[in-house]
Structures are given as C-alpha cells and as structure tokens.
C-alpha cells in the first residue's frame, strides 16, 4: 500500500528540501548564537581547555544519544502497534470493549511520564524465567516500554479520531460498490486515515524522543547519564556543565527541528488539498 503525500510538483519532497534550506536560517542563527554563548563563557572563565574537554568527551555523550534514539525507535514501534489496537477497541460497538479501553486511555493520558516510568521501573520484574532460564531485562528496555504507554494512549485517541473523521457516505458508497467490511477498511478508510493521522503521529514521535532523557533518572546509560559521568570524570564544575548541557541541547535540537519542520510541511500540504 503506497500513500502519496506529495501529489503535485509544488509539494514534492525536493521542494520540501529546498524549503528547509530557506528556513534553515533560524537553525543557523541558533547555532551561531550557541557558539557565541560558548565563546563568551570560555572568555569569562578564561578556560579554553573546557572546549578541549568537550571535544574529548563528545563521542561518549553521542554514544548515549544513540541509545536515546534507539529507545525512541523501539518505543514508537510498540506505541504504534498498541495504539492501533487501542484505537480499534475505542471505536468498537461493544461496550464491554469500549469502556475498559477508554479507562486505559484516560489513565495513561492523565498521568505524568515520570509516574509511568516509576511504575514500569519499580513494579515490573527485573528478570524473567523462560523454560528454567533466567533472562535479565535491561533497564533501557523497561524505559522503552514505559515511554510507549503514554504515547500509545494518545495515538489510540488520534487513530479513533481519524477513523471517525471519514464521512459516513464513504462507507455507504463502498458498500454500494460491493466492498466488504475488510476491503472498505483496507482500500478506502485506512489510506485516508494515514494521511490525517500522520502529522500527529510525527508530533508524538518528537515528544517521545524529547522524553527519553528521563531514563537517566533510573540509571539508564543514555546521553544525560553519560554527560554527568563525563563532567564528573573531567573535574565537575559549573563552567564545564554549561558547554556540556548546551551541547546536549544542540544534539536534540538538530535531530528534532527538521522533524518538526517536516510535520508542519505535511500538515500544510494536507490542509491545502482539502480546501
């Protein structure tokens, strides 16, 4: 199943890339501003060696950042699958299915991420026994599951909204054309839902990625933990923390900002087509 997002030439991916380059001036400005701040701080402290420390430890911090990214990927896969199931349960006609699924949705939408993280970290087993073998569950796996739960609840709501936003007449016309229920879903409803839900789905991916540093609270060796370890082994001090945390913020910004721009472009593309 292929879903075309950019139908006409003006909205092709190439134009989007061009648009990013045009809009990149904010990104450039931000990087320049960060560099100026860096420089100012180094001048204030007269410590150019801070930059050397940062460069020496940057690969270590970046390694932690890669764990953040893998947590976000796996978490998003789990959240999408569970969210689809939850969305289907929410639009079910049986009350015995809708009521508990609505409860699940409300519980995970109304509690802070940190609480969900504590629940999974402390109340889930730290090892499982399968056929007499003991398998330890690494902390980052538990964190991945924890992050997927709030996203699951929100995606469920988004998928439900997307299916309900398809006019009833579409179901009826599909019916009159001889499509059965599964075929209607497969060829008519889902392709439209994907288009409608995609911007929100991407937005939630960005939010999920921005939440992954939380895993450091419970000892997962990701970017924030690695930054702290690096700062401590390089002789902790606020003058070191400043460039390190700024570097970390910049890493996330460089990854998330293009996603945010792409989300906005897709959203606009869709809303123009509907006018």
């Amino acid at each position, binding site marked *: 199943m292929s879903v075309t997002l950019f139908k006409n030439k003006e909205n092709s991916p190439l134009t989007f890339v061009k648009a990013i380059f045009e809009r990149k001036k904010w990104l450039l400005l*931000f990087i320049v501003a960060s560099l100026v701040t860096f420089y100012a701080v180094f001048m204030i402290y007269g410590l150019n060696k801070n930059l050397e420390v940062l460069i020496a430890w940057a690969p270590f911090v970046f390694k932690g950042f890669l764990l953040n990214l893998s947590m976000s990927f796996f978490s998003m896969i789990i959240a999408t699958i569970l969210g689809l199931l939850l969305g289907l349960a929410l639009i079910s006609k049986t009350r015995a299915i809708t009521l508990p699924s609505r409860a699940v949705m409300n519980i995970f939408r109304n509690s802070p991420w940190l609480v969900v993280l504590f629940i999974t970290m402390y109340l889930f087993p730290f090892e499982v026994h399968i056929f007499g073998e003991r398998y330890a569950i690494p902390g980052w796996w538990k964190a991945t599951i924890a992050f997927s739960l709030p996203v699951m609840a929100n995606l469920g709501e988004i998928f439900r909204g997307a299916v309900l936003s398809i006019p009833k007449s579409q179901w009826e016309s599909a019916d009159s054309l001889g499509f059965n229920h599964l075929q209607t879903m497969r060829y008519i409803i889902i392709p439209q839902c994907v288009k409608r839900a995609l911007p929100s789905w991407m937005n939630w991916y960005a939010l999920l990625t921005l939440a992954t540093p939380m895993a450091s609270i419970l000892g997962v060796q990701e970017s924030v933990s690695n930054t702290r370890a690096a700062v401590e082994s390089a002789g902790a*001090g*606020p003058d070191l923390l400043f460039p390190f945390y700024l570097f*970390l913020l910049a890493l996330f910004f460089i990854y*998330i900002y293009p996603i945010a721009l792409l989300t906005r472009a897709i959203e606009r593309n869709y809303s123009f087509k509907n006018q």
Partner: protein
Amino acid sequence: MFDIIAPLFLEIHKTTGLNFVTFYDPYEYGRFISGAGKSLQLMLYTLCLSLIIGVLGAQAQTSKSKMLRGGVEIYVQAFRNTPVMIQLLFFYFAIGGIGPVIDAGGYYEPLIPAFGWAVIAIGLFGGAYNVEIFRSGIEAVPASTTQAAKSLGMNKWQVFSRITLPLAFRVSFPSLGTNLISLAKTTSFAYVIAVPEVTYMLNQIWADNVNVPEMIFLLFLFYFTVITALSIFLNWLESRITIPGVGK
C-alpha cells in the same frame, strides 16, 4: 483530618499489609502534605508565567521589528525542540551554578533556589507553546474587527488589550487548555533538580519505608486528581467565556 484517617490506615496496614505510611505516621504525613502543597504552588506559578510569556510573545510576533520577531521565533523553536528535562538541568546546574550566591550564615546559597529555577525553566518551556497558540488565535481575529476598533480612535495597545486579545483568547482556549494540562504534568520534572515537590517527597518516603507500590499508587492518584480537577475547571471556564458565533 489526620486524626480521623490515621486509625483506619493503621488498621489497613496491620490487617492487609498495605503500608500507606503517609496516612498514619505524622512525620510522613507532614512530608506528603508539604510536597503536595509545593507541587500545587509550582503548577500555579508555572501556568501563570507561561500565560504571561505567551501573551507577550504573541504580541511581539505581530510587531514590525524583524529582530524582535526573529528573537521570539528562535526562543519558541529552541524551547519546543529540546527536552524539558535537560532545559531544567541546564538552567539549574549550568546557569544557576555560575550565577550569584548569597551568604546564608556560614554557607553559600544560590540567589535563585531550585524552586525558582523550576518555575523559570518550565514556565519558559510552556510559554513557547503558548506563544504559538496565542498567535494562531490572534490570526483568527478578522482584520475588519481591528480596523473598526482603530477607526473608533483606539490606539495600538487599546486595540490589542480590548479587542484582539479577548477574542484571540477565546478562539485559542481549547488548545490552550490542552497545553496547560500537559504543563501541569510537566512540573513533575522538577524532581530532577531536587525541588521538594510531591514526586521527590514520595520518592524519599518510599526509599525510607520500602513501600514502593503503595506510594507510586498515591503519586499516580495525586496527579490524576489534580489533572482531572484542572480539566473540569478549564472545561467550565470554556463554556462560561464562549461568545455565540465566535470560534466554532
């Protein structure tokens, strides 16, 4: 209040083993109440700061100065596209660490305590979202309305405060409510800079009493109650302030 519930929870602890220590031990009760109070305070200040920033930022984005608009845009994008937890750490440890200190009789305390930095950081984070929300609200106000106000002799500030803002506020209220609710949940991040709010306090309590499941349940219940109350209040407010024919 404490005297009434204490025997009941002590009884529950003895019979079922469920250790809700915060409801029968006076010391832990005090810790929980102070943490809950601090959390509510933090939410109130953060929401107010984010609303002020949102209004000011949205007004700045309507200005003619390209510098001002660019500055607001950089602020919004920088705060929206970076993790709020690292923002907190950055403000408290990196900026607070090199900031001024005051002599607190023998030892030095930073001028702005952790609570203050939490309000500033989370307020700025929420404000970045509010700027965008208010801006879309301002854009939804028809140009003819503001032109009519101008032709009645109002100056720029009067038009903004009496015509544009009240209308924009009502148009953007649904998405504003969603953001305020998510911001109230975000305040739990103040835990990472050791603000003694409810997450931090309950964490201490479960570390001391080894009753993790009960205390996590209590933590969940606290946020669930506060968030539900907030959303009911916002829904009520929304139904009170809607003008027929504006917005929807």
